[in-house]
């Protein structure tokens, strides 16, 4: 069974967004670590070899998740501004963004091992099991990114692995 233990380089993250959204995307390591909890507004992607074994988490704040979900369907940025202000994604935007998280599973792949899969996709605030909260607090590795989508806006992403 595959286990998640790769953290992608910022360039790989930017490339995926770039290819998927068809527009220039810049990803840079954040100067400050994000304090992400299940109450943080945005979206979580949970990755692992089985539904029960989650070894990797991607969190995108509500701004990044909304901008990416909108850009994917060429929805104008202004359309998602109310959702960003309210801290809650619209269902359609979340559905679009889920596809980004699904394709992002490739970040965690290790050559020679079975592919890692996206197991769950959750709009947040949400409930997370204790072990996943623990992973957010004390991961084996983490990557905090500032991501800017050309023509839309900027947001933050956190990737952690157990």
């Amino acid at each position, binding site marked *: 069974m595959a286990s998640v233990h790769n953290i992608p380089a910022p360039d790989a993250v930017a490339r*995926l967004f770039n*290819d*998927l959204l*068809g527009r220039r995307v810049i990803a840079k390591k954040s100067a400050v670590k994000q304090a992400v909890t299940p109450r943080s507004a945005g979206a979580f992607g949970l990755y692992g070899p089985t539904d029960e074994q989650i070894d990797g988490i991607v969190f995108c704040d509500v701004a990044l998740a909304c901008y990416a979900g909108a850009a*994917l*369907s*060429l929805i104008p940025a202004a359309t998602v501004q109310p959702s960003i202000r309210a801290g809650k994604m619209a269902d359609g935007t979340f*559905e*679009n963004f*889920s*596809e980004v998280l*699904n*394709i992002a*599973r*490739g970040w965690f792949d290790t050559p020679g091992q*079975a*592919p890692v*899969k996206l197991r769950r996709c959750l709009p947040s605030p949400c409930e997370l099991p204790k072990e996943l909260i623990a992973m957010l607090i004390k991961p084996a590795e983490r990557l905090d990114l500032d991501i800017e989508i050309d023509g839309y806006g900027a947001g933050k992403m956190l990737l952690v692995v157990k």
Partner: protein
Amino acid sequence: MKILVVDDSKAMRMIVMRTLRQAGFGEHTIEEAGNGVEALKNIEGTPADLILCDWNMPEMNGIDLLKKLREAGNGVKFGFVTSEGNPEMRQIATDAGAAFLITKPFTVDAFQSALQPVLTG
């Protein structure tokens, strides 16, 4: 020619169709379906010349759709557009009769390279 795009994500169907146009295949008739069952229904009336299909979908997934088509004697040109593309999956796809497998996220160049020989061959 009719190209049928099969994916359970509406956003992804839109991206595939946009990429088809950017890759120079916009003159073809492009239709869409949300899963294998819908795809079979779509081609009942007008057969497709090429099916571009996701792998994981509810109701009927991509590989089951391909196998069903081949069992029925339907030799329609078929390619996968999917988020996973490990060697094992590529082998399964080839054995079942797929012409190519493109992994997401994809580029316009990837579409041109994969589709050009299939559509002109």
